[in-house]
C-alpha cells in the first residue's frame, strides 16, 4: 500500500515537474506546481502510517501555504496579464541582468 502510494506520488511529482519545465503558459505552470505540492502531500499522508501522525500535520501546513501562495500567485499573474495581455512566460524576461 505504501509502496503503491509512493510510486503514484513520484509519478505525480514528475508530471508536475515536467509541466513546470515544458509548458509556457503561466496558469498551466501554476497548476503544475500545485500538482507537485500535492504529490508531496500524498507521500506525507502515506508515510504517516509508518512513522506516525506528524506527516498529516505537515499536510495541513502545506495546504494552508499553498492556498496563500495560490492567492498571491494568481494576483501576480493577473497583473502581468493586464500589463502584457499575455500569460506566455517566454515574453517575460525582465529577470535578466
Amino acid at each position, binding site marked *: 500500500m505504501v509502496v503503491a502510494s509512493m510510486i503514484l506520488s513520484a509519478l505525480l511529482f514528475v508530471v508536475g515537474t515536467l509541466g513546470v*519545465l*515544458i509548458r509556457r503558459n503561466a496558469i498551466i505552470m501554476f497548476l503544475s506546481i500545485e500538482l507537485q505540492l500535492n504529490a508531496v502531500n500524498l507521500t506525507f499522508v502515506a508515510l504517516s502510517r509508518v512513522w506516525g501522525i506528524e506527516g498529516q500535520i505537515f499536510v495541513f501546513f502545506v495546504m494552508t501555504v499553498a492556498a496563500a501562495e495560490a492567492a498571491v500567485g494568481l494576483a501576480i499573474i493577473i497583473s502581468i496579464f493586464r500589463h502584457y495581455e499575455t500569460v506566455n*512566460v517566454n515574453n517575460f524576461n525582465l529577470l535578466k*541582468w
Partner: protein
Amino acid sequence: MHAILPMLLTGGTAALQAGTEAGSQSGAGAFVPFLPGLVVLLPLIGFVINGVLALLHARASAVAVRNGGELDLDGPGGRPLTHTLPTWVGPGVVGLAFLITLVNFVRMLGVHLEEPVVRTYWTWIDTGTFHVAAALQLDQLSMVMMLVVTGVSFLIHVFSVGYMGDDPAYPRYFAYLNLFVFFMLTLVMASSYALMFVGWEGVGLCSYLLIGFWFTDREKADAGKKAFVVNRIGDFGFLVAMFLLFSRFHTLDFVPVFHGAAAGLAYGGGLITAITLFFFLGATGKSAQIPLYIWLPDAMAGPTPVSALIHAATMVTAGVYMVARSSVLYALSPVGSATVAGVGALTAFFAATIALKQYDIKKVLAYSTVSQLGYMFVGVGVGAYAAGIFHLMTHAFFKGLLFLGAGAIIHSMHHALHHTHSHADAQDMRNMGGLRKYMPITWIVMWVATLAISGVWPFAGFFSKDEIIWQAGAFGGAAHAPYPRLYTFYWILALAAALLTAFYMTRLMVMTFHGPNRTGTEESRHLRETPAVMWIPLVTLAALSLFGGWINVPEKLHQSFLGLFGALPMGEWMHHWLEPVTAAAQQIQATHLGAVSESAPFGGGEVLWGVVSFLLAVAVIAFAWRMVGSRKYVPAEESPADTGFARVLNRKWYVDELYDTIVVRPLKSTSRFCWKVIDAGVIDGIVNGLGYLARGLGWFGSLFQTGTVNTYALILSLGVLVILGVVIF
C-alpha cells in the same frame, strides 16, 4: 658687565643649564657648556622666520601677476619687509650662534676635558634594543667644527647680503642657508651616528635646494638632482656601516662604541674593515672623492656664496669630520685607512690635473676643492687626524675666500655685461683679464688665498698641507707599516698635486686679474669694486688665511727658521687640542705599527722637505706666471677649441661620458626593461589576465541567465538531481 663676562666664560651659572649631562672631567674645574642647544636652534629659528617671509613674498608676487603686473621690489614704498628683514635675521642668527660657540670655546680652553660632554634633551627613538637620544656632544673636535661652521657661515651670510640682495627670491635664499647651518651643526654636534645621519641627510637636502636655487633653468635643476642622486649612493654606504656597527655594539652612540671598539673588534678583522669601507663610501659621496666626486663641479650651478659655504668650506668636509670622529675605528682597520688615504691621494692628483684646463673660474675652484679634500683624506687616512682637521679648517678659510672672491668677480662682471646686454659668459676667465685695476681689494685678497692654497710660507696652507704630505711619507716609514711602498706612492702623488695646485691657481689669477682686459671696451667701464658688505668678509677671511696656519706649526718646523725659531705663538696647538679625541686611535696605531719614521721616503727631515716644497711652490708660481702671462687669450666666443691632451683635460678626462656609458645608460636601459617588460608586461599582464579571466567566466555564466523562468527551473531541477545523486551514491 664686569661681573657677567667672567661668569659667562667660566660657566658659574650651572643652575641656568637645562638638560642632563654625562661625562667626567679631570683637571682644574669642570666644563659647563653654555646653551649648546641654542647654537643649533638659532639657525632653525632663522629658517622659520625667513621661510615664512619667503612664503609671504611668493603670495604677494602671485597676486601681482594675477593682477596683470609684476611685483616691483624697488617701488616708491621702498623694499618690502620680506626683503629687508632677512638681511638682519639671516646673518644675525648665525652670528649669535657663533658668539655662543665662542663662549663655549673659551670655557673649554680653561679646562682639560678628557671625556666628551654629552647633553641629552629627549629620547628620539626607543624601540626594542635600539635607543637613540636627541643628544649633543661637546668635545674638542666638535668645538673646532662648530667654530669653523658658524664663523665661516656668518661671514658668507654677510657676503650674501650684497651678492643676493637684488634677487627676487632673497628670503627663500636665506631660509635655505639658515636651514643648512642648522643641519650642519646637527651633523657636527650629534652624539651618535644616527643623529649625525640626520644632519648628513639634511645638509644634502639643503645642498640640493641651493644648487637648484634658480630652478627655472633646466640645467641648474638637473645639477641639483645629480648632486642628490650621487649623494644617495654614498648614503647607502653610511647606512650599511651603521647596521654593521649596530649588529656588534647594539648602540650607535659615539662614547660606548669608541670605548668598546678595541675590545669588541679584532684588529684588521673583516667586520671592522667592512664598517670602515662602508663609512668611507658615505664620505666619498658627501666629500666628493673618486668615484663619486662628479656632482661637485656641477654643483657650481648654485649661487656663488652657496658654493663657498656648502661646496667648499663646510658640507663637503663632513666626510673628513666623520672619519676623524671615527678615528678609533679607522685605526683598527689598516685596509680601511689605506683605502681612505689612497682614494684621497688619487683624488688630490686627478682633480688637480682637470683644474689645469678649465676656463670657468668656478669650475677651477670646484676641482681645486675636490683636490684639497683629497689631501684631508690623506691626512686622516695616515692617522694624522689633527693634520686632516687642521687642513679642513685652513681650507675653509682660503677656499671660502677664493669662492667669495670669485663671487665678487662674477657679480661685477655680471653687472658690466648686463649694462650692454651682452650675452658673454660672466664666469669664463677668457672674458676677464686685467681686473686688478677695477677690483684692487679683491685682487689682493685673492692673491693671499692663492699663496695660502699653493703652500707658500708663511700662509696657512703651507703648514696644513705640508704636514699632511710629511705625515703620508712618515707613515710609510713606520716600523710595521702595512704597505710601505703604497704610502710612498701616496706621498709622491700628494707632492705632485701640490705643484699642480700652485700652477692652476696662478693660472686662474693671471687670467683673471693680470694682462689686458678682455671684457670689451664698453663693458669694462662698468666694472666696479664690490660694496663693503662684500669685501669686509673677504678681508676677514684673508687675515685668517694668512695667520690661521700659525696655530698648528709642527714642532720641528716651529723650532727652525720656518717657525721663526719658536717665535710663532702657538706651536702644535691644534695637535694638543685634539689629543683627547684622537688619543685612543694614536695608541692603537702605536701598538700595532710602531713609531712613525723621522725622515721622508727618500731621506731628508721635516724642515728640509718643508723648505723644498716651499721653493717648489714658488718656482711653479713663477713658471706659471711667465707661461700663462705670455700666452695671448681672446674672449671665449672667439677662442678655438682645445686640441690634444689639453682637450682631454678640458673635458675632465671624459669621466662624465664614461659614467654615462657604463652606469647611467645601462641603468636607464635596465630601468626601461623593468618598466616595459617586467612591469608593463609580466606584472600588469598577470593582473589584467586575472581581470579578463573573471570577465570571461562572468560572460559564460551570464549565458544561463536567460530571464525565462523555465530555464531557471530546469537548472534548479538539475541541481537538485545532482545533489540527490551525490547524497545517495
